[in-house]
Protein backbone atom coordinates (compact mmCIF):
# COMPACT_ATOMS: atom_id res chain seq x y z
CA UNK A 1 0.00 0.00 0.00
CA UNK A 2 1.44 3.35 -1.02
CA UNK A 3 0.51 6.59 0.72
CA UNK A 4 -1.01 8.06 -2.44
CA UNK A 5 -4.22 6.00 -2.58
CA UNK A 6 -4.59 6.45 1.17
CA UNK A 7 -4.44 10.24 0.86
CA UNK A 8 -6.78 10.13 -2.11
CA UNK A 9 -9.24 7.95 -0.27
CA UNK A 10 -9.26 10.28 2.74
CA UNK A 11 -9.78 13.31 0.52
CA UNK A 12 -12.73 11.61 -1.23
CA UNK A 13 -14.21 10.53 2.07
CA UNK A 14 -13.88 14.05 3.49
CA UNK A 15 -15.49 15.58 0.43
CA UNK A 16 -18.41 13.17 0.55
CA UNK A 17 -19.03 13.82 4.25
CA UNK A 18 -18.61 17.56 3.80
CA UNK A 19 -21.57 17.64 1.38
CA UNK A 20 -23.80 16.16 4.10
CA UNK A 21 -22.51 18.36 6.93
CA UNK A 22 -23.89 21.80 7.71
CA UNK A 23 -22.76 24.58 9.98
CA UNK A 24 -25.44 25.41 12.55
CA UNK A 25 -25.82 28.87 14.11
CA UNK A 26 -28.60 29.73 16.51
CA UNK A 27 -27.42 33.17 17.54
CA UNK A 28 -25.16 33.88 20.46
CA UNK A 29 -21.58 32.72 20.48
CA UNK A 30 -20.08 29.76 18.72
CA UNK A 31 -21.18 27.48 15.95
CA UNK A 32 -22.03 23.83 15.83
CA UNK A 33 -22.45 21.25 13.13
CA UNK A 34 -25.31 19.18 11.80
CA UNK A 35 -25.89 16.25 9.47
CA UNK A 36 -28.31 16.31 6.52
CA UNK A 37 -30.42 13.21 7.18
CA UNK A 38 -32.98 13.34 4.33
CA UNK A 39 -33.23 15.01 0.92
CA UNK A 40 -36.31 16.91 2.10
CA UNK A 41 -34.28 18.94 4.53
CA UNK A 42 -34.19 17.08 7.84
CA UNK A 43 -31.01 17.95 9.73
CA UNK A 44 -29.84 16.15 12.89
CA UNK A 45 -27.74 17.98 15.45
CA UNK A 46 -27.17 18.12 19.20
CA UNK A 47 -29.79 19.66 21.48
CA UNK A 48 -27.03 21.80 22.97
CA UNK A 49 -26.32 23.20 19.49
CA UNK A 50 -29.97 23.87 18.57
CA UNK A 51 -30.74 26.15 21.52
CA UNK A 52 -33.18 28.52 19.77
CA UNK A 53 -36.39 28.01 17.78
CA UNK A 54 -34.72 28.88 14.49
CA UNK A 55 -31.26 28.25 13.13
CA UNK A 56 -29.07 29.50 10.32
CA UNK A 57 -27.54 26.67 8.34
CA UNK A 58 -24.55 27.01 6.03
CA UNK A 59 -24.10 24.26 3.44
CA UNK A 60 -20.73 23.03 2.18
CA UNK A 61 -21.28 24.97 -1.07
CA UNK A 62 -21.64 28.20 0.92
CA UNK A 63 -25.41 28.61 0.63
CA UNK A 64 -27.01 30.00 3.77
CA UNK A 65 -30.45 28.63 4.65
CA UNK A 66 -32.80 29.01 7.54
CA UNK A 67 -34.25 26.17 9.55
CA UNK A 68 -36.74 25.59 12.31
CA UNK A 69 -35.93 23.42 15.32
CA UNK A 70 -38.72 20.82 15.27
CA UNK A 71 -37.71 18.41 18.04
CA UNK A 72 -35.32 18.48 20.94
CA UNK A 73 -34.34 15.71 23.38
CA UNK A 74 -32.05 17.03 26.09
CA UNK A 75 -31.41 13.63 27.67
CA UNK A 76 -30.09 12.16 24.43
CA UNK A 77 -28.68 15.58 23.46
CA UNK A 78 -30.33 15.37 20.02
CA UNK A 79 -32.43 17.77 17.96
CA UNK A 80 -33.99 17.99 14.51
CA UNK A 81 -33.97 21.05 12.30
CA UNK A 82 -36.26 21.35 9.26
CA UNK A 83 -34.69 23.36 6.45
CA UNK A 84 -37.13 26.02 5.20
CA UNK A 85 -38.31 25.06 1.72
CA UNK A 86 -37.69 21.37 2.33
CA UNK A 87 -37.59 19.35 -0.86
CA UNK A 88 -37.64 22.46 -3.02
CA UNK A 89 -34.10 23.28 -1.88
CA UNK A 90 -31.90 21.83 -4.61
CA UNK A 91 -28.88 19.65 -3.97
CA UNK A 92 -29.37 18.52 -0.39
CA UNK A 93 -27.15 15.47 -0.01
CA UNK A 94 -28.25 13.18 2.84
CA UNK A 95 -25.56 11.26 4.67
CA UNK A 96 -25.21 7.52 4.23
CA UNK A 97 -26.11 6.04 7.59
CA UNK A 98 -24.23 3.00 8.85
CA UNK A 99 -24.72 0.81 11.87
CA UNK A 100 -22.60 0.97 15.03
CA UNK A 101 -22.90 -2.80 15.44
CA UNK A 102 -20.44 -3.20 12.57
CA UNK A 103 -17.83 -1.12 14.42
CA UNK A 104 -14.93 -2.74 16.24
CA UNK A 105 -12.41 -1.20 18.62
CA UNK A 106 -9.50 0.00 16.48
CA UNK A 107 -11.62 0.72 13.39
CA UNK A 108 -10.77 3.96 11.61
CA UNK A 109 -13.27 6.77 12.12
CA UNK A 110 -13.41 10.27 10.70
CA UNK A 111 -15.17 13.35 11.99
CA UNK A 112 -16.30 16.37 10.02
CA UNK A 113 -17.35 19.66 11.50
CA UNK A 114 -16.44 23.21 12.34
CA UNK A 115 -14.02 22.91 15.27
CA UNK A 116 -13.32 26.35 16.75
CA UNK A 117 -15.02 27.88 13.72
CA UNK A 118 -12.83 26.21 11.10
CA UNK A 119 -15.30 25.27 8.40
CA UNK A 120 -15.44 21.71 7.11
CA UNK A 121 -12.44 20.38 9.04
CA UNK A 122 -11.60 16.66 8.97
CA UNK A 123 -10.25 14.67 11.90
CA UNK A 124 -9.08 11.05 11.71
CA UNK A 125 -8.86 8.56 14.56
CA UNK A 126 -9.89 5.13 15.74
CA UNK A 127 -12.65 3.66 17.87
CA UNK A 128 -11.21 3.71 21.40
CA UNK A 129 -13.87 1.71 23.21
CA UNK A 130 -17.32 0.28 22.67
CA UNK A 131 -18.86 -0.55 25.98
CA UNK A 132 -22.33 -1.96 26.29
CA UNK A 133 -24.70 0.60 27.72
CA UNK A 134 -26.99 0.13 30.64
CA UNK A 135 -30.61 -0.72 30.05
CA UNK A 136 -32.56 2.33 28.97
CA UNK A 137 -29.47 4.42 28.46
CA UNK A 138 -27.64 5.04 25.22
CA UNK A 139 -24.33 3.41 24.54
CA UNK A 140 -21.63 5.85 23.51
CA UNK A 141 -18.95 5.50 20.87
CA UNK A 142 -15.65 6.61 22.38
CA UNK A 143 -13.12 7.65 19.76
CA UNK A 144 -9.43 8.47 19.92
CA UNK A 145 -9.85 11.53 17.70
CA UNK A 146 -9.04 15.21 18.11
CA UNK A 147 -12.29 17.17 18.38
CA UNK A 148 -13.04 20.70 19.56
CA UNK A 149 -16.12 22.80 20.27
CA UNK A 150 -17.85 23.27 16.92
CA UNK A 151 -17.62 19.55 16.12
CA UNK A 152 -20.77 19.10 18.18
CA UNK A 153 -23.61 17.77 16.07
CA UNK A 154 -21.28 16.76 13.25
CA UNK A 155 -20.86 13.26 11.82
CA UNK A 156 -18.56 10.50 13.01
CA UNK A 157 -18.21 8.12 10.07
CA UNK A 158 -16.54 4.78 9.37
CA UNK A 159 -13.90 4.05 6.70
CA UNK A 160 -16.63 3.81 4.05
CA UNK A 161 -18.06 7.18 4.95
CA UNK A 162 -21.15 5.77 6.62
CA UNK A 163 -22.24 7.92 9.54
CA UNK A 164 -22.16 5.84 12.74
CA UNK A 165 -22.56 8.57 15.33
CA UNK A 166 -23.03 12.23 16.14
CA UNK A 167 -20.06 13.92 17.82
CA UNK A 168 -21.46 15.21 21.07
CA UNK A 169 -18.78 15.85 23.66
CA UNK A 170 -15.17 15.56 24.63
CA UNK A 171 -14.27 13.70 27.83
CA UNK A 172 -10.69 13.18 29.01
CA UNK A 173 -9.56 13.97 25.46
CA UNK A 174 -11.80 11.32 23.90
CA UNK A 175 -14.48 12.17 21.37
CA UNK A 176 -17.85 10.89 22.54
CA UNK A 177 -20.48 10.24 19.88
CA UNK A 178 -24.16 9.37 20.17
CA UNK A 179 -24.63 6.24 18.03
CA UNK A 180 -27.02 6.39 15.08
CA UNK A 181 -29.14 3.69 16.72
CA UNK A 182 -29.98 6.25 19.40
CA UNK A 183 -30.76 8.79 16.68
CA UNK A 184 -33.21 6.29 15.15
CA UNK A 185 -34.98 5.88 18.52
CA UNK A 186 -35.04 9.65 18.97
CA UNK A 187 -36.58 10.16 15.50
CA UNK A 188 -39.13 7.48 16.19
CA UNK A 189 -40.08 9.14 19.50
CA UNK A 190 -40.27 12.50 17.72
CA UNK A 191 -42.89 11.14 15.35
CA UNK A 192 -40.78 10.36 12.32
CA UNK A 193 -41.30 7.10 10.49
CA UNK A 194 -38.80 5.12 8.48
CA UNK A 195 -39.60 3.45 5.15
CA UNK A 196 -37.74 2.37 2.01
CA UNK A 197 -37.10 5.97 1.08
CA UNK A 198 -35.75 7.01 4.48
CA UNK A 199 -37.11 9.03 7.38
CA UNK A 200 -40.32 11.02 6.89
CA UNK A 201 -42.32 13.21 9.20
CA UNK A 202 -45.44 11.25 10.15
Amino acid at each position, binding site marked *: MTPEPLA*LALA*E*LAERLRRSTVEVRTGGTGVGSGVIWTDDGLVITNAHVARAETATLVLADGRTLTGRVTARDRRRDLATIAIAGGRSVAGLTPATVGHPATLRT*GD*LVVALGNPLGITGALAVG*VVHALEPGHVGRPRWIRA*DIRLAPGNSGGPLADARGRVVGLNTMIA*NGLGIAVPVTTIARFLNDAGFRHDDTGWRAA
Partner: protein
Amino acid sequence: MAGASTDSTPAGVLESLSNDLAGAVERAGQSVVAIHARRRIPSSGVHWRPGIIVAAHHTIQRDEDITVSLADGSTLPATLAGRDPTTDLAVLRVDGITAPVARVADPNGVRVGALVLALGRPGPAVTASLGVISAVGGEWRTWHGGTIDRFVRLDISIYDGFSGGPLVDAAGRVLGIDTSGLSRGAALAIPAKTVNRVADQLQKDGRVSRGYLGLGMQAVRLPAALIERLGLPNDVGLMIVSAEPGGPADRAGVLIGDILVALDDAPIADPAELLALLGADRVGKSVTVRIVRGGEVTNVAITVGERPQQQRSSRRGR
Protein backbone atom coordinates in the same frame (compact mmCIF):
# COMPACT_ATOMS: atom_id res chain seq x y z
CA MET B 1 -20.45 -7.81 3.88
CA ALA B 2 -20.24 -5.56 0.90
CA GLY B 3 -16.88 -4.25 -0.20
CA ALA B 4 -13.99 -6.69 -0.12
CA SER B 5 -11.26 -5.63 2.26
CA THR B 6 -8.56 -6.26 -0.34
CA ASP B 7 -10.18 -3.80 -2.74
CA SER B 8 -7.51 -1.49 -4.18
CA THR B 9 -9.83 1.37 -5.10
CA PRO B 10 -9.30 4.48 -2.96
CA ALA B 11 -12.24 3.74 -0.68
CA GLY B 12 -11.08 0.14 -0.27
CA VAL B 13 -7.68 1.28 0.96
CA LEU B 14 -9.22 2.92 4.03
CA GLU B 15 -11.52 0.00 4.69
CA SER B 16 -8.64 -2.41 4.43
CA LEU B 17 -6.56 -0.35 6.87
CA SER B 18 -9.53 -0.12 9.22
CA ASN B 19 -9.99 -3.89 9.12
CA ASP B 20 -6.28 -4.44 9.77
CA LEU B 21 -6.33 -2.15 12.79
CA ALA B 22 -9.51 -3.62 14.25
CA GLY B 23 -8.13 -7.12 13.61
CA ALA B 24 -4.89 -6.20 15.39
CA VAL B 25 -6.86 -4.96 18.39
CA GLU B 26 -8.95 -8.12 18.47
CA ARG B 27 -5.94 -10.46 18.31
CA ALA B 28 -3.56 -8.59 20.61
CA GLY B 29 -6.39 -7.62 22.96
CA GLN B 30 -6.80 -11.28 23.97
CA SER B 31 -3.57 -11.10 25.96
CA VAL B 32 -4.29 -7.69 27.53
CA VAL B 33 -5.59 -7.92 31.09
CA ALA B 34 -7.05 -5.48 33.61
CA ILE B 35 -5.12 -5.36 36.88
CA HIS B 36 -6.90 -4.38 40.07
CA ALA B 37 -4.09 -3.02 42.19
CA ARG B 38 -5.04 0.59 42.71
CA ARG B 39 -8.07 2.68 43.60
CA ARG B 40 -10.62 3.76 41.03
CA ILE B 41 -9.62 2.71 37.53
CA PRO B 42 -7.88 -0.65 36.91
CA SER B 43 -4.53 -0.60 35.10
CA SER B 44 -3.38 -2.68 32.12
CA GLY B 45 -1.03 -5.64 31.86
CA VAL B 46 0.10 -8.11 29.21
CA HIS B 47 0.12 -11.92 29.43
CA TRP B 48 3.77 -12.10 28.45
CA ARG B 49 4.68 -15.71 29.24
CA PRO B 50 2.44 -18.56 30.43
CA GLY B 51 1.24 -17.52 33.88
CA ILE B 52 3.32 -14.31 33.84
CA ILE B 53 1.78 -10.85 33.51
CA VAL B 54 3.97 -7.82 32.82
CA ALA B 55 2.72 -4.43 34.02
CA ALA B 56 3.92 -0.90 34.67
CA HIS B 57 5.42 -0.65 38.18
CA HIS B 58 3.91 2.77 38.86
CA THR B 59 0.36 1.51 38.32
CA ILE B 60 0.68 -1.35 40.83
CA GLN B 61 -0.06 0.57 43.98
CA ARG B 62 -0.39 -2.32 46.38
CA ASP B 63 1.56 -5.53 46.85
CA GLU B 64 -1.29 -7.77 47.99
CA ASP B 65 -4.94 -8.39 47.18
CA ILE B 66 -4.24 -8.09 43.47
CA THR B 67 -6.64 -9.58 40.92
CA VAL B 68 -6.52 -9.75 37.16
CA SER B 69 -9.48 -9.69 34.75
CA LEU B 70 -9.13 -11.40 31.37
CA ALA B 71 -10.65 -10.70 27.98
CA ASP B 72 -13.25 -13.43 28.58
CA GLY B 73 -14.50 -11.59 31.67
CA SER B 74 -13.08 -14.01 34.25
CA THR B 75 -11.14 -12.69 37.23
CA LEU B 76 -8.21 -14.50 38.84
CA PRO B 77 -6.02 -13.79 41.88
CA ALA B 78 -2.47 -12.64 41.15
CA THR B 79 0.70 -12.43 43.22
CA LEU B 80 3.39 -9.82 42.76
CA ALA B 81 6.58 -11.63 41.70
CA GLY B 82 8.64 -8.46 41.80
CA ARG B 83 9.02 -4.92 40.62
CA ASP B 84 11.81 -2.85 39.10
CA PRO B 85 11.14 0.84 39.68
CA THR B 86 14.18 1.76 37.57
CA THR B 87 12.56 0.45 34.37
CA ASP B 88 8.97 0.93 35.61
CA LEU B 89 8.20 -2.76 35.16
CA ALA B 90 6.47 -5.22 37.47
CA VAL B 91 5.75 -8.93 37.10
CA LEU B 92 2.70 -10.76 38.41
CA ARG B 93 2.08 -14.49 38.63
CA VAL B 94 -1.38 -15.81 37.79
CA ASP B 95 -2.23 -19.51 38.05
CA GLY B 96 -4.66 -21.12 35.64
CA ILE B 97 -4.72 -18.26 33.15
CA THR B 98 -6.29 -19.29 29.85
CA ALA B 99 -5.64 -16.16 27.78
CA PRO B 100 -3.11 -16.51 24.95
CA VAL B 101 0.35 -15.02 25.51
CA ALA B 102 1.35 -11.93 23.54
CA ARG B 103 2.90 -12.46 20.11
CA VAL B 104 6.11 -10.45 20.14
CA ALA B 105 7.10 -8.65 16.93
CA ASP B 106 10.49 -8.60 15.25
CA PRO B 107 12.42 -5.65 16.78
CA ASN B 108 13.04 -4.33 13.25
CA GLY B 109 9.44 -3.13 13.35
CA VAL B 110 10.47 -0.40 15.78
CA ARG B 111 11.03 2.38 13.24
CA VAL B 112 10.22 6.06 13.13
CA GLY B 113 6.90 6.48 11.32
CA ALA B 114 5.62 2.95 12.03
CA LEU B 115 1.86 2.96 12.55
CA VAL B 116 1.15 1.64 16.04
CA LEU B 117 -1.73 1.03 18.42
CA ALA B 118 -1.56 1.41 22.19
CA LEU B 119 -3.96 -1.05 23.80
CA GLY B 120 -5.25 -1.07 27.34
CA ARG B 121 -7.91 -2.64 29.50
CA PRO B 122 -8.85 -0.10 32.15
CA GLY B 123 -12.14 -1.95 32.65
CA PRO B 124 -13.99 -4.85 31.03
CA ALA B 125 -13.36 -3.74 27.43
CA VAL B 126 -10.13 -3.37 25.53
CA THR B 127 -9.27 0.18 24.44
CA ALA B 128 -7.16 1.38 21.53
CA SER B 129 -5.44 4.54 20.41
CA LEU B 130 -3.64 5.06 17.13
CA GLY B 131 -0.36 6.84 16.57
CA VAL B 132 3.14 6.52 15.22
CA ILE B 133 6.59 5.88 16.62
CA SER B 134 8.01 9.39 16.62
CA ALA B 135 11.60 8.81 17.70
CA VAL B 136 13.91 5.83 18.13
CA GLY B 137 17.28 6.00 19.87
CA GLY B 138 19.88 3.71 21.36
CA GLU B 139 20.21 2.38 24.88
CA TRP B 140 19.34 4.91 27.56
CA ARG B 141 19.28 5.24 31.29
CA THR B 142 16.17 6.31 33.17
CA TRP B 143 16.22 8.92 35.92
CA HIS B 144 15.94 6.07 38.38
CA GLY B 145 19.02 4.33 37.01
CA GLY B 146 17.44 1.59 34.89
CA THR B 147 18.75 0.57 31.49
CA ILE B 148 16.29 0.50 28.57
CA ASP B 149 17.69 -1.14 25.44
CA ARG B 150 16.20 1.36 23.02
CA PHE B 151 14.59 4.75 23.33
CA VAL B 152 11.11 4.54 21.76
CA ARG B 153 9.00 7.66 21.86
CA LEU B 154 5.40 7.66 20.62
CA ASP B 155 3.14 10.25 19.09
CA ILE B 156 -0.06 8.90 20.57
CA SER B 157 -2.74 10.08 23.00
CA ILE B 158 -2.46 8.81 26.56
CA TYR B 159 -5.73 7.71 28.16
CA ASP B 160 -6.53 5.71 31.29
CA GLY B 161 -4.96 2.27 31.01
CA PHE B 162 -2.10 3.35 28.73
CA SER B 163 0.74 2.35 31.06
CA GLY B 164 1.32 -1.40 31.19
CA GLY B 165 -0.59 -2.00 27.96
CA PRO B 166 1.10 -3.30 24.83
CA LEU B 167 2.37 -1.28 21.90
CA VAL B 168 1.26 -3.29 18.87
CA ASP B 169 1.90 -3.05 15.14
CA ALA B 170 -0.81 -3.18 12.47
CA ALA B 171 -0.63 -6.98 12.52
CA GLY B 172 -1.31 -7.16 16.26
CA ARG B 173 2.24 -8.13 17.23
CA VAL B 174 3.67 -6.63 20.40
CA LEU B 175 6.61 -4.22 20.12
CA GLY B 176 6.85 -3.36 23.81
CA ILE B 177 5.08 -2.16 26.94
CA ASP B 178 3.76 1.42 27.06
CA THR B 179 4.41 3.75 29.96
CA SER B 180 3.94 7.39 30.77
CA GLY B 181 5.81 6.97 34.06
CA LEU B 182 9.43 7.18 32.90
CA SER B 183 9.81 10.63 31.42
CA ARG B 184 7.58 13.44 32.72
CA GLY B 185 4.42 11.86 31.40
CA ALA B 186 5.71 11.42 27.85
CA ALA B 187 4.41 8.40 25.92
CA LEU B 188 7.28 5.91 25.76
CA ALA B 189 7.51 2.21 25.01
CA ILE B 190 9.79 -0.22 26.81
CA PRO B 191 11.06 -2.55 24.07
CA ALA B 192 10.33 -6.28 24.27
CA LYS B 193 14.04 -7.04 24.75
CA THR B 194 14.13 -5.00 27.97
CA VAL B 195 10.85 -6.52 29.13
CA ASN B 196 12.31 -10.03 28.62
CA ARG B 197 15.51 -9.18 30.50
CA VAL B 198 13.74 -7.55 33.45
CA ALA B 199 11.06 -10.26 33.58
CA ASP B 200 13.81 -12.93 33.72
CA GLN B 201 15.37 -11.23 36.74
CA LEU B 202 12.09 -10.53 38.50
CA GLN B 203 10.88 -14.10 37.99
CA LYS B 204 14.19 -15.46 39.32
CA ASP B 205 15.03 -13.06 42.17
CA GLY B 206 11.92 -10.96 42.67
CA ARG B 207 13.99 -7.84 42.15
CA VAL B 208 16.57 -6.21 39.92
CA SER B 209 19.60 -5.35 42.02
CA ARG B 210 21.66 -2.17 41.57
CA GLY B 211 24.88 -0.96 43.09
CA TYR B 212 24.47 1.62 45.86
CA LEU B 213 26.79 4.08 47.57
CA GLY B 214 24.28 5.90 49.79
CA LEU B 215 25.23 9.37 48.61
CA GLY B 216 23.35 12.49 47.59
CA MET B 217 25.28 14.60 45.11
CA GLN B 218 25.15 17.91 43.34
CA ALA B 219 27.23 18.81 40.27
CA VAL B 220 29.55 21.77 40.95
CA ARG B 221 31.96 23.70 38.74
CA LEU B 222 35.58 23.47 39.89
CA PRO B 223 37.95 26.45 39.91
CA ALA B 224 40.47 26.47 37.04
CA ALA B 225 43.42 26.87 39.40
CA LEU B 226 42.38 23.75 41.32
CA ILE B 227 41.91 21.72 38.12
CA GLU B 228 45.38 22.69 36.96
CA ARG B 229 47.12 22.14 40.29
CA LEU B 230 45.56 18.73 40.91
CA GLY B 231 45.40 17.60 37.25
CA LEU B 232 41.66 16.88 37.46
CA PRO B 233 39.94 15.14 34.52
CA ASN B 234 36.85 17.46 34.38
CA ASP B 235 35.88 21.01 35.19
CA VAL B 236 32.79 19.65 36.98
CA GLY B 237 32.62 17.35 39.98
CA LEU B 238 29.89 15.97 42.23
CA MET B 239 29.71 17.57 45.66
CA ILE B 240 28.47 15.23 48.36
CA VAL B 241 25.42 16.87 49.94
CA SER B 242 24.22 13.89 51.96
CA ALA B 243 25.60 10.52 53.05
CA GLU B 244 23.31 7.85 54.44
CA PRO B 245 24.49 7.09 57.99
CA GLY B 246 25.97 3.59 58.02
CA GLY B 247 25.68 3.40 54.22
CA PRO B 248 28.53 2.08 52.03
CA ALA B 249 30.17 5.49 51.42
CA ASP B 250 29.69 6.65 55.02
CA ARG B 251 31.40 3.52 56.34
CA ALA B 252 34.29 4.12 53.93
CA GLY B 253 34.77 7.63 55.32
CA VAL B 254 33.28 9.84 52.59
CA LEU B 255 32.26 13.20 54.09
CA ILE B 256 29.66 15.80 53.20
CA GLY B 257 31.44 18.53 51.23
CA ASP B 258 33.79 16.10 49.46
CA ILE B 259 33.80 16.51 45.69
CA LEU B 260 33.75 13.26 43.73
CA VAL B 261 35.63 13.50 40.42
CA ALA B 262 36.23 9.90 39.30
CA LEU B 263 35.26 6.29 39.97
CA ASP B 264 37.88 3.63 39.17
CA ASP B 265 39.70 6.19 36.98
CA ALA B 266 36.54 7.01 34.97
CA PRO B 267 35.87 10.78 35.18
CA ILE B 268 32.41 11.60 36.60
CA ALA B 269 30.63 14.88 35.85
CA ASP B 270 26.99 13.84 36.22
CA PRO B 271 25.10 11.66 38.74
CA ALA B 272 23.78 9.62 35.78
CA GLU B 273 27.35 8.70 34.82
CA LEU B 274 27.90 7.40 38.33
CA LEU B 275 24.65 5.38 38.23
CA ALA B 276 25.71 3.90 34.90
CA LEU B 277 28.82 2.49 36.56
CA LEU B 278 26.90 0.94 39.46
CA GLY B 279 25.23 -2.07 37.86
CA ALA B 280 24.27 -5.30 39.62
CA ASP B 281 27.75 -6.72 38.90
CA ARG B 282 29.33 -4.18 41.30
CA VAL B 283 27.35 -5.19 44.37
CA GLY B 284 29.75 -6.46 47.09
CA LYS B 285 32.84 -5.39 45.10
CA SER B 286 35.22 -2.62 45.99
CA VAL B 287 35.45 0.57 43.91
CA THR B 288 37.85 3.47 44.32
CA VAL B 289 36.42 6.97 44.20
CA ARG B 290 38.70 9.96 43.70
CA ILE B 291 37.59 12.92 45.75
CA VAL B 292 38.75 16.48 46.33
CA ARG B 293 38.83 17.32 50.04
CA GLY B 294 40.43 20.41 51.57
CA GLY B 295 42.10 21.30 48.28
CA GLU B 296 43.79 17.90 47.88
CA VAL B 297 42.97 14.70 46.04
CA THR B 298 42.19 11.59 48.07
CA ASN B 299 41.29 8.09 46.97
CA VAL B 300 38.67 6.22 49.00
CA ALA B 301 37.83 2.53 48.58
CA ILE B 302 34.10 1.79 49.00
CA THR B 303 32.47 -1.63 49.14
CA VAL B 304 29.40 -1.19 46.92
CA GLY B 305 26.12 -2.03 48.63
CA GLU B 306 22.79 -2.97 47.13
CA ARG B 307 20.20 -0.30 46.55
CA PRO B 308 17.21 -0.73 48.88
CA GLN B 309 14.05 -1.69 46.99
CA GLN B 310 11.53 1.02 46.43
CA GLN B 311 8.23 -0.62 47.27
CA ARG B 312 5.72 1.67 45.75
CA SER B 313 5.78 4.55 43.41
CA SER B 314 4.38 7.99 43.87
CA ARG B 315 5.06 8.66 40.22
CA ARG B 316 2.06 9.81 38.32
CA GLY B 317 0.91 8.53 34.97
CA ARG B 318 -1.97 6.74 33.35
